[in-house]
């Protein structure tokens, strides 16, 4: 790079030349671009904002169609009502239980399998990988799964929710490519010291993989936390319902009320449930919102790791 005139201005992070900064066209573009992005961000944020506003609003204001981004008739009554509902806390507890147990099982299966298939010398390795990858593109479908879970006697038990999702092939491939990149010499040294594969895995490989393990835990926890359909399929007893299913029933019930009362210009019951829905939704998102800022980076790195081997 001899001539300074032709050297593009390079952004330190992206390494992309941006051209001369002082040209009017470029400045115009920058502002336009920023405005578009601000607009996109606001559009993405808006549903959250209005949800929050509704959760603090009075039922009358929602019924009158006054609530958008700002609470109208501010009150905490709805939060008190929801927090006083035993079914809410039962389902919250269930969700925590299913998430913890499910994630634990999933991590056990994923890490052990990923470690085994990350060893290039393992005989039958390609077959093992093939068996796993094939399930990404072809699955049994709802009906045979339902028949299987029923015949295993898992209906109305925690296992119906926890076991079927306990191995995500995407996560498996992410872990595998991470393990493959651990320097071989470390393991070879341990082998010379007489450690078996299992000890190498637990004492050397896992401690080196804290970041990816954390990412996988997050992926699985979010999946279990958000799952409602499995519960919808396999659970009939209220006291086993996870939060997501409790919420779904709340919403589904509310829509029928809204539909019925549409002609009658909206009764109070529909508006109250709009309140309660909003609060329950906020409380269901809350844990994810609380950890999100701290873990977002890990999520992103997990996706990128997965794309390496795709």
């Amino acid at each position, binding site marked *: 790079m001899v001539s300074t005139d032709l050297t593009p201005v390079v952004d330190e992070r992206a390494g992309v030349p941006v051209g001369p900064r002082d040209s009017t066209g470029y400045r115009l573009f920058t502002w336009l671009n920023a405005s578009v992005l601000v607009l996109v961000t606001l559009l993405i944020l808006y549903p959250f904002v209005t949800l929050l506003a509704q959760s603090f609003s009075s039922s009358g204001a929602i019924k009158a169609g006054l609530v958008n981004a700002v609470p109208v008739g501010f009150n905490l009554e709805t939060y008190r009502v929801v927090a006083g509902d035993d079914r809410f806390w039962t389902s919250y507890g269930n969700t925590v239980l299913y998430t913890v147990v499910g994630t634990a099982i999933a991590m056990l299966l994923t890490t052990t399998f990923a470690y085994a298939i990350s060893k290039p010398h393992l005989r039958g390795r390609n077959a093992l990988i093939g068996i796993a990858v094939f399930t990404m593109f072809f699955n049994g479908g*709802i*009906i045979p799964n339902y028949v299987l879970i029923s015949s295993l006697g898992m209906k109305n038990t925690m296992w119906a929710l926890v076991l079927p999702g306990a191995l995500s092939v995407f996560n498996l491939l992410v872990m595998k490519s991470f393990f493959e990149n651990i320097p071989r010499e470390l393991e070879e040294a341990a082998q010379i010291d007489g450690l078996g594969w299992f000890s190498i895995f637990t004492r050397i490989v896992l401690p080196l993989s804290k970041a990816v393990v954390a990412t996988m835990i997050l992926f699985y926890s979010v999946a279990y936390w958000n799952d409602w359909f499995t519960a919808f399929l396999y659970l009939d007893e209220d006291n086993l319902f996870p939060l997501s299913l409790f919420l779904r029933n709340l919403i589904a019930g509310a829509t029928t009320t809204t539909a019925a009362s549409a002609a009658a210009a909206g009764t109070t019951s529909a508006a109250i449930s709009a309140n309660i829905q909003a609060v329950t939704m906020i409380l269901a998102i809350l844990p994810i919102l609380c950890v999100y800022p701290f873990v977002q980076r890990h999520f992103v790195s997990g996706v990128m790791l997965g794309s390496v081997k795709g």
Partner: protein
Amino acid sequence: MDVPHDRAHRVLLADDPDGIVTTPVPAPDDVVDPVRRPPRPPRGTSAKVPWRLALRRDGALYAMALLPLLFLLVFRYLPMVGNVIAFRRFRPGGSIFGEEWVGLRYVRMFIEDPTFWHVFTNTVVLGALTLLVCFPLPIVLALLLNEVRTKWFKGAVQSISYLPHFLSIVIVAGMVMQLTSLQGTVNQIVEGFGGEAIPFLQRPEWFRAIYVGSEAWQTVGWGTILYLAALTTVDSSLYEAARIDGANRWRQTWHVTLPGIRPTMITLLILNIGLFLNVGFEKVLLLYTPLTYSTADVISTYLYRVGLVSNNLSYAAAIGLFQAVIGLVMVLSANFISRRVVGASLW
């Protein structure tokens, strides 16, 4: 052996000699053994060891793979085999593989079922609209983000746009219901312009827009991650060369940036095509009502109602199998076509 080396082998031994290959081929003297070898030579201690020895040496590894393998067999492959009930009479409480063969009875049944073809059309339309809107949007957003020089601003937009990805589909459905309800923001805007409030979720003509819109809302941000990663790998000397050749910003984007992220685009396109028919079953199930079946009912929701609500499991399994096979065929052919035409493929 390092990764590029391994790739070089794969490229040289690819079985279609006239296929255009995007992977850089190293200098000839870098290639050890260009004669016939299995397409993917195992790395490391590659020679095949006898099973007896492998088991003794790697017994612990096989033991670690045992439980996950068992899991896959029971919870993934058993249901696949369970699809035979599409061709057998099934009695609840009986064998999960059905009682006796009935041949193609259930297949004929859905081929002659007008509702099936109706939901099939709905699925294709919904899937196509989703692909059309939700595939290009993240690319556009990533390109816009890539032009942002202010770090905190870029970071903030990214963080906020990723957020919807982590929401339960139930929450998304709840938000959609609130926004489109008679008292919701959308209708307030409609009324603000002097219109009449519309019960959107009860109108079949609005369902597709609502579905695709909410899908875009939830996926656009998260979808940028891989593109942003790909954008950072575009060689900056290419931009320099383009500038010397007199390319303006727009032409640089067109001739340098887009080709740079093409492999990522193709890979994601293939994946999306494979998932085409599984269009957000859960979301449809949460958002549709009998009033909107004419546009909202898709294959999965139909087979769910036939199978699990009306208890006609064999018939529903036949539909499900059909759907799964089409999905598999689609992803395989998309992969094949993209390898032939653009030289990039998933495998």
